[in-house]
């Protein structure tokens, strides 16, 4: 605002801030004082900067997902990944936030449900807090900083779905599901774990969201993939897997670097407080797991296939990041290394397994977010070590003398969240299929969704090649449900090209 009024505010503000510091520890400090409290100031900045980094992960997802799909669908995927954050922003504002953090039952929030309308005197905390969002009253930042930080997390969960259902889903059907996801699915399980709900009380812990964000995104994606069926040409008539290479490994690599960066907001930022020891610790565990997982995925790929497969290195890195997300604050750097190594192996094996099972996930979203999200959540119950942790948290894990108690709490969380999310997602996808259809017609899929749905090509000046580019004859494949008849069955529609 660059103007004298602000000068006034600031000059006054600075004076107040400094003069008041030594009396500000009174529990009755008014909001005005809190807002010039260095801790509130610093926590707010940290929270917002972290939120910006997490926001930026939308770019990462957009690039990983479009890069690992074909050029003829690039606009569609970019459009989906772009608009999904718009949808999430509005849905979370409208109702998601209230469901997740509003005071209420053990299952969802009921106070201050819509449009942040509940009373709230943040950044007051503890006894001093009065308002509708008690569960997140521990964070010493203004309400809108909390909201913004939680919003970008919700957006992440929604964007995960996009990659798994890519190259065959209708654009508007995806938009509809995203709204449901952020308005009704994500906030409910979120409430259970982060909103003071029953899983939190049960003793399940998830620092930055291996379950709350990643596996929820993964379960919702799995439901979509099951109803959609595989892409045309992914499985030959004999059921053999035909890999469909992505169109742009540069995009995919940019995407993963951006996600890695974003994760430095995602994990260390989940303190929502500038706790020097905690955020330094989490930055290092996060980075170590990512590095270790990249390396172990590389080695696994070389062992299994003899080639240093870039797509697997990239997925490996993401796998490590997802896996360390739940335990990042409660495990030692050494444990983070081990967690990373396991995640990197897990993701390679699991990509192969999903492919074999006929579950066609173009970008590996299920292997990364679902499988490693589950693994990371369980890892809390295995590796948690209070002596290494910079913040208090779960009981020690199995490997640190804690026995099975924490592990079983984690396990309950995994199962409960999985059952709810998979079930409701299946229902939501099914309703959307009934109302507006889920999958584009076969000839649109062959021609590419960009031309068919958007009337545009991503790269109109470039000669795209049709020779050996996955326009395969074999349709259907092993899972062939009603949604994907072999194209040959309806030649009347095959006029596209």
């Amino acid at each position, binding site marked *: 605002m660059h103007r004298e009024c602000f000068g006034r505010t600031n000059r006054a503000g600075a004076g107040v801030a400094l003069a008041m510091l030594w009396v500000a520890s009174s529990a009755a400090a008014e909001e005005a004082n809190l807002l010039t409290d260095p801790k509130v100031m610093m926590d707010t900045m940290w929270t917002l900067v972290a939120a910006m980094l997490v926001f930026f992960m939308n770019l990462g997802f957009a690039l990983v997902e479009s890069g690992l799909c074909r050029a003829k669908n690039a606009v569609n995927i970019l459009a989906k990944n772009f608009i999904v954050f718009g949808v999430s922003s509005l849905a979370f504002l409208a109702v998601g936030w209230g469901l997740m953090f509003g005071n209420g039952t053990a299952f969802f929030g009921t106070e201050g449900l819509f449009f942040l309308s509940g009373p709230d005197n943040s950044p007051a905390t503890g006894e001093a807090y009065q308002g509708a969002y008690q569960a997140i009253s521990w964070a010493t930042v203004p309400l809108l900083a909390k909201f913004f930080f939680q919003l970008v997390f919700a957006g992440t969960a929604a964007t995960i779905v996009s990659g798994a259902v890519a190259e065959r889903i209708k654009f508007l059907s995806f938009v509809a599901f995203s709204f449901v996801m952020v308005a009704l699915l994500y906030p409910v399980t979120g409430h259970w774990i982060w909103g003071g709900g029953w899983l939190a009380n049960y003793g399940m812990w998830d620092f930055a969201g291996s379950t709350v964000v990643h596996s929820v995104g993964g379960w919702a994606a799995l439901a979509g993939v099951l109803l959609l069926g595989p892409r045309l040409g992914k499985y030959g008539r004999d059921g053999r897997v035909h890999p469909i290479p992505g169109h742009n490994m540069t995009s995919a690599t940019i995407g993963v670097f951006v996600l890695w960066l974003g994760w430095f907001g995602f994990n260390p930022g989940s303190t929502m407080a500038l706790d020097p020891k905690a955020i330094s610790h989490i930055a290092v565990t996060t980075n170590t797991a990512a590095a270790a997982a990249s390396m172990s995925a590389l080695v696994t790929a070389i062992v299994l296939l003899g080639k240093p497969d870039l797509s697997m290195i990239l997925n490996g890195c993401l796998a490590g990041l997802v896996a360390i997300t739940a335990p990042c604050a409660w495990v030692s750097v050494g444990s983070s290394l081990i967690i990373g190594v396991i995640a990197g192996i897990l993701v390679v094996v699991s990509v192969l397994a999903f492919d074999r099972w006929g579950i066609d996930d173009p970008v590996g979203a299920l292997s990364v977010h679902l499988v490693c999200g589950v693994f990371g959540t369980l890892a809390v119950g295995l590796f948690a070590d209070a002596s290494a942790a910079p913040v208090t948290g779960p009981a020690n894990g199995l490997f640190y003398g804690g026995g099975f108690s924490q592990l079983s709490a984690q396990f309950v969380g995994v199962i409960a969240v999985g059952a709810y999310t998979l079930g409701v997602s299946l229902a939501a996808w099914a309703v959307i299929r009934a109302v507006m259809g889920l999958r584009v017609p076969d000839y649109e899929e*062959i021609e590419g969704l960009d*031309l068919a749905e*958007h*009337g*545009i*090509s991503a790269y109109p000046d470039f*000669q*795209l*090649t*049709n*020779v050996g580019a996955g*326009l*395969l*004859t074999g349709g259907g494949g092993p899972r062939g449900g009603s949604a994907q008849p072999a194209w040959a069955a309806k*030649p*009347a529609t*095959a*006029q596209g*090209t």
Partner: protein
Amino acid sequence: MKKIEAIIKPFKLDEVKEALAREGVQGMTVSEVKGFGRQKGHTEVYRSAEYVVDFLPKIKIEVLVSDDKAAACARLIENTAKTGRIGDGKIFVLPVDEVVRIRTGERGADAI
């Protein structure tokens, strides 16, 4: 010898290739082309304005065959590439004076 040139729909390439290979055709050369014909182009939209793209992607297959096999080969391509929908493409048969296999220097039918 004859050179058969076929303009086909891109997604038919694999089928045609396999059909030809089954019939003993050992080689072919393929390229990307754009076709203009009775099949009208599609409408695209860019920044809220529509425009027509006249040229559609097609695949051109070139196969050298001996005179006696030319007709059968053309027929095979025709049958395999056919969907019955507009834009299926064309097959041309051209006379060829000489063929050389570069690796061996073989000429004529041996070189195919």
